């Protein structure tokens, strides 16, 4: 399955929403202070991406092109609202922390971008796959950024994992630097920009070192 491989590679690396498409920066930068927040928002975004891609793909032949954008926006808003309500009902403690940002997923342009660029032109299976791997790629960068900021900002890794995985996960916290004073810059929003910049720089450096000329991914930028 050539297209399946293509979708996986695009989502995770070649056309990664965070490092190549540079989409969804608002939640990416706001909620990457610690690994657990990053994971929580990453999973929620992934879920919304899959659900919205599937629905958009299902209705793609019945929606006229003039009104497709408002319809996609409605589909996304409905999926996000339902996920938010379900979170309030079943994961209330996590909701208290990332609830605000779950509502903001509606405005995450990764989701409308995938609906428009992929799901409205492909079948349900590939659309779901695209949503899943785009979401995974987004989560991956979120977690890397979260780990970087948590490590430098607090001197720990995986603190407060119990919010996501229950009390048993409390011991996952690793204190990397003892008696660490903390480094405020990385916890505040500028640290997120610097961190993301470093990640993108690293990715570009890594690709340039590859001997074979890799195909240049089309850069899309949006708010």
């Amino acid at each position, binding site marked *: 399955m050539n297209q399946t491989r293509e979708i996986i590679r695009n989502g995770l690396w070649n056309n990664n929403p965070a490092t190549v498409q540079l989409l969804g920066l608002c939640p990416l930068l706001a909620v990457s202070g610690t690994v657990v927040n990053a994971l929580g928002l990453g999973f929620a975004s992934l879920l919304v991406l899959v659900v919205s891609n599937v629905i958009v793909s299902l209705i793609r032949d019945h*929606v*006229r092109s003039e009104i497709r954008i408002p319809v996609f926006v*409605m589909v996304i808003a409905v999926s996000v*609202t339902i996920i938010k*309500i379900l979170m*309030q*009902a079943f994961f209330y403690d996590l909701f*208290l922390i990332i609830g605000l940002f779950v509502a903001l997923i509606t405005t995450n342009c990764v989701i409308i971008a995938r609906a428009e660029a992929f799901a409205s032109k492909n079948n349900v299976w590939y659309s779901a796959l695209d949503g899943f791997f785009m979401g995974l790629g987004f989560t991956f960068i979120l977690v890397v950024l979260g780990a970087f900021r948590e490590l430098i900002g607090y001197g720990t890794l995986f603190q407060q994992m119990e919010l996501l995985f229950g009390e048993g996960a409390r011991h996952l916290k690793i204190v990397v630097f003892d008696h660490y004073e903390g480094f405020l810059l990385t916890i*505040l929003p500028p640290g997120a920009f610097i961190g993301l910049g470093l990640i993108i720089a690293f990715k570009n450096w890594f690709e340039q070192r590859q001997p074979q000329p890799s195909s240049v991914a089309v850069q899309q930028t949006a708010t």
Partner: protein
Amino acid sequence: MSEQPQEQNSKQENSISKNMLVNAVMLGLFAIVGTAIVAYTSEHTHDRVVANQRDHGLRQLHQLIPPSLHDNDLDQDVIEVQDKLLGSNQPMKIYRARKDGHPVAAIIECIAPDGYSGKIKLLVGIRASGVLAGVRAIDHMETPGLGDAIETRKSGWIHQFDGKSLKDEPDWRVKRDGGDFDQITSATITSRAVVKASYNALRYFKQHQADIFDRKAGQP
């Protein structure tokens, strides 16, 4: 010659307005179906969400006054009061804990208006003897990594209020200002705000103690 284009024009207009109508109906349908799905989900989870919210509120209250100390419904035995000492001109809640009908403690909701990044909402638990059962910050926008040490899940700073009262006359200022309370490193403004608000809540309690416990729940 001139008839043909006219006919085409009116045909075009016809098809444009027809298109618009179809599009409008379609958008409307999507809106209705979407709203219906959200309404259905909300309807079926509403009770659970309300229970979660109540549970969460009760857990916060029970951190200050454990369930073993009282036998009434803490979140039902509530009055609302308005006083400058509580840091807001909005009505604030006071939860009353009783055992066998006798007052045990009150949990006063109050606001420290002068935090580093705006208001800090606090719950101040005061035993009937006038001793602080504890203070909790329940809502704030203080700097992550510094001022948010007022949260119990970030640091134990706020536990220093446990057991303090007006009677042992501690100096209600942070040490940096010559008082008796530790400040959070690099978050002195936040610390000052919380110390002052807790002090004011204690003073309010002292002035209105009888009224706080005697007033019927729900009465203004």
